[in-house]
């Protein structure tokens, strides 16, 4: 069933405001952060106004309610991913989730399956977001391990041709994005995961741009860890998820140390609670976790398959329309089976920053620059791109507005 976008937009209060003196808001920047439906805002408000207390820390009724809401949210996230509840760790965002892993590897003792030394290698790709690149660069520096990477083909796909020299018996970690936040490319990771597991490597998936847009089942995917952010999936800011296969998660050394993650503490030593608790030090981001669960329920009620289908249709239309504007070049695959609704492009003679500014003056929000994937931008040989990224609240009229504005911008900047 096609999405009723007009009705969906009514769920998002931001669409009642206007931009730059009365223009309709055309929001094409969901790749950076998504807008929030009222139910998500309400869930946070409800937590603060009625159930606020420190979860897991008190025998009083408010604390019980806060704990129940918090743990029920974990269950919601788990079932959305096809995971077990105790495999879900709440973080402040994907960036923390990925850094958690990199530091926890560092915290492993020799002999542990997470211990990484100069004889090991870490494999990433050239299309990684900085959040799934720099933590591994730093882990490589700390441990002496070698950092290797998959390149990107000229049409913006993962270049798997060198898989056998990249993933070898020494490989400890393979950390890859499931969907590029610049190219829109959806990586089919099956072969790589298989190969990585053959050599005993641990596979970490950056699912920031996939989980909000396509059905992801961690059991089917077969990876070991997976990270995403709440704010890109209609949820609040300040919350993220780390999923980990339980046996691994429970064995992984902790990262942040403090209250609620311990088993026993003396002045000189401490032992840890079981996962996921041992990764959730401190009073947690409870209201945000509850808001994230509301976001996921909202998406589930619409249907993530339906959202994906809708974005596919929109992307097809966007690519077709962009192809008709002279001077516009899309970076990344144009084959719809290989990509999602994040479309980066350049316009001859207009710098993305100037184009973005023009679009803004027409009420259209896009992102310009290197999109926190600077090595990729460099590999593509462009100084920067303009990125339109779609979500369930967009429709063809948004794309029409974008196309009109690009054509106007070309006139404005004299192209």
């Amino acid at each position, binding site marked *: 069933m096609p999405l009723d976008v007009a009705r969906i937009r009514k769920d998002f209060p931001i669409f009642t405001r206007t931009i730059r003196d009365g223009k309709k808001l055309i929001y094409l920047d969901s790749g950076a952060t998504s807008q929030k439906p009222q139910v998500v805002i309400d869930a946070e408000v409800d937590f603060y106004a009625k159930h606020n207390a420190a979860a897991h820390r008190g025998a009083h009724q408010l604390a019980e309610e806060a704990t129940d809401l918090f743990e029920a949210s974990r269950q919601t996230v788990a079932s959305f991913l096809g995971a077990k509840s105790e495999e879900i760790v709440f973080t402040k965002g994907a960036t923390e989730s990925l850094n958690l892993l990199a530091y926890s590897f560092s915290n492993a003792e020799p002999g542990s399956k997470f211990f990484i030394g100069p004889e090991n290698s870490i494999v990433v790709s050239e299309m990684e977001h900085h959040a799934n690149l720099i933590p591994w660069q730093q882990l490589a520096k700390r441990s002496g391990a070698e950092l290797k990477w998959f390149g990107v083909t000229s049409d913006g796909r993962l270049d798997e041709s060198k898989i056998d020299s990249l993933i070898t018996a020494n490989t400890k970690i393979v950390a890859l994005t499931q969907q590029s936040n610049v190219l829109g490319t959806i990586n089919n990771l099956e072969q790589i995961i298989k190969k990585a597991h053959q050599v005993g490597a641990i596979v970490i998936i950056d699912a920031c741009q996939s989980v909000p847009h396509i059905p992801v089942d961690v059991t089917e995917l077969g990876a070991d860890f997976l990270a995403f952010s709440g704010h890109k999936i209609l949820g609040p800011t300040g919350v993220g998820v780390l999923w980990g296969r339980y046996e691994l998660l429970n064995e992984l050394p902790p990262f942040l140390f403090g209250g609620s993650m311990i088993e026993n503490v003396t002045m000189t030593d401490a032992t840890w609670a079981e996962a996921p608790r041992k990764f959730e030090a401190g009073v947690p981001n409870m209201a945000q976790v509850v808001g994230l669960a509301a976001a996921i329920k909202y998406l589930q009620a619409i249907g993530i398959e339906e959202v994906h289908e809708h974005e596919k249709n929109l992307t097809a239309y966007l690519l077709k329309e962009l192809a008709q504007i002279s001077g516009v070049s899309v970076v990344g695959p144009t084959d719809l089976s290989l990509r999602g609704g994040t479309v980066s492009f350049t316009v001859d003679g207009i*710098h*993305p*920053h*100037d184009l973005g*500014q023009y679009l803004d*003056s027409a009420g259209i929000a896009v992102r310009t*620059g290197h999109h926190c994937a600077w090595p990729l931008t460099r590999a593509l040989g462009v*100084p*920067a791109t303009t990125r339109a990224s779609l979500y369930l609240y967009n429709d063809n009229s948004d794309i029409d507005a974008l196309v009109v504005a690009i054509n106007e911008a070309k006139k404005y900047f004299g192209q």
Partner: protein
Amino acid sequence: MQLDNLYQEVILDHYKHPENKGLAASYDAQVHHINPSCGDEITLNLTLQGDKVSAISWDGVGCSISQASVSIMSSLMLNKNLEQAQIILDDFMLLMQSKGIGAPDEAILEDAVAFAGVSQYPARIKCALLGWMAFKDASVQAQKKN
């Protein structure tokens, strides 16, 4: 159109026909500055004669604001002594922080007054400043060398 406050004609002119672009072979100081949030880059070569800016040249990639700004800055600074240059620099910094209500002194800033509108667009102030920060950096280095 409000956008015209930002994209004054003189800015678009300098963007299309930049001045002092193309790096000179010799210089007292060469600096390379980047805007990390968008990836704009410029390289600036500076030569001093005593305390006078005797040569200035640059190359770079970036948006119209960053490229026009370095072009205008380079023409403005050429043949100024460092004291005058500092006054111009300070004035331009002030203008950028003025949130659209600054009254720039055209006697000092000349064509650079065209950037008054940038101060209303916080995300673009860094674009306009890229070349000026490079100049500041280069002049310190060139003085050290001399």
